[in-house]
């Protein structure tokens, strides 16, 4: 019962904050709402008993990535009204396309999980505890996606360095 109430409260918070992120006029406020959103998601993870993921969510997203967003927002002058350099209608079209794509993706995921539900607990994990389990799964069942993700991040990092340092 408590869990259900908690879930709905958190879900509402997440949706409200998400809405505020895209409606806030001030970019900094928008980033702040994003942080609140991430914190609510972390709370949701705690509710699900996934403390490790919750803590990592705060550490990486709320504490790291959003700070970088803020950094960029403060460095770049965004005080000018957006109309002056963007065609609002084109942006709208792009938005519709992206929203549709996300919707299709979500429906696909939901449908897939209904057809082939994930195993409730990793069947073979010989370890106990949340953190250990995540580690175990990452290095056994999901080793290839994990390594691919690392490669992707490495490539992104090299790219970022190349972009920011014009003359090497």
């Amino acid at each position, binding site marked *: 019962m408590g869990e259900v109430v908690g879930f709905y409260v958190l879900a509402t918070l997440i949706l409200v904050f998400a809405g505020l992120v895209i409606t806030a006029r001030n970019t*900094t406020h928008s980033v702040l709402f994003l942080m609140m959103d991430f914190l609510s998601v972390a709370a949701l993870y705690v509710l699900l008993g996934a403390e490790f993921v919750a803590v990592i969510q705060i550490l990486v997203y709320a504490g*790291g990535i959003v700070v970088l967003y803020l950094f960029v927002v403060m460095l770049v002058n965004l005080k000018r009204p957006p109309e002056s350099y963007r065609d609002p209608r084109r942006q709208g079209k792009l938005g519709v396309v992206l929203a549709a794509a996300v919707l299709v993706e979500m429906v696909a995921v939901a449908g897939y999980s209904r057809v082939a539900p994930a195993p409730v607990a990793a069947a073979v994990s010989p370890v106990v505890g949340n953190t250990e389990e995540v580690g175990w799964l990452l290095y056994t069942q999901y080793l290839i996606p994990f390594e691919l993700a690392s490669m992707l991040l490495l490539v992104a990092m090299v790219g970022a360095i190349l972009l920011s340092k014009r003359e090497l």
Partner: protein
Amino acid sequence: MVDAVVIPLLKIVIVLVATLTAVSYMVLLERKVIAWTQARLGPMRVGPHGILQPIADALKLMIKEDITPARADRWVFTLAPILAMVPALIVYAVIPFGPAVEVFGRPVTLYITDINVGLLYVVSVTSVGVYGIILAGYASNSKYPMLASLRASAQLISYEVAVTLTLVSVVLVAGTLSLVGIVEAQREAHVWYLFAQPVAFALIVIGGLAETNRAPFDMPEAEQELTGGFHTEYSGMRFALFFLAEYANMIVVSSVATTLFLGGYLRPFPNVAAFGVLDIVPSWMWFLLKSFAFLYFFIWIRATLPRYRYDQLMRLGWKVLIPIAIANLVVTAIVRVLLVARVGADG
């Protein structure tokens, strides 16, 4: 009921009150220690040897006018000091001041909670603390605070990487993320991790100085460059919150370092019966003593060293600390795997 609600609540109240008192007296301690370093007396007027100075300071700050600059972002301006203070306080939830003891015939643990991702909790909560500084600089709508918050965000993120990587190697040695678990692992290993992981210890000390914006890494508030940095526009109680948050963070860093490297609440030589006489001093007292040594070291550094320059700080972080942290991690991992293999072969 008593065990589930009353005792945790009592513990939270005690820890909060103790922390806030400790924080205000840290200010006095710092002023006194620096004064002695500099052949001065420090506060002497309020109470004997200035012992009541924190109370006078608090009163003064509370009755000061609370100014919000005309073109500031009001909401964020108010939110920033709160965001700086809250993470600094909620970290104390997982810090083990002592093991389980008996109080009035009831077993009570001398920590609020022991979660199995304790260390990660500390890191993630403190990583949220940076918002206070960044938002203060942004919301003030003033140039010096703005520069300071840009410095702060870059500095804190960079050093967080080094510190977190270093913590991983400690976790590798201890085999647990729980802070109580790490202390107990040191008891079982018969060694403080200061000696098992000296490189990590040095990295944590340097990174801790940088993460708490302490000299010689106090760029975000460099008085002589940025006229006080991110809190230039703050006054009264909101300024006091920033001030207290800085000291609360210092206490957090020294508590965590004590737990990780100095055996936490354990007395020296916890396994040697001959030193049993040391048990006269209660465990939480040992913890406080060790943390105090750390805090004293922080203050001592501040009184001695000039300030690094911003670019030098970043260079130190990225080109020195992070590579060393990674190397330390790799070496630790290899040694650990070899040890486990040998133990396995023996068994």
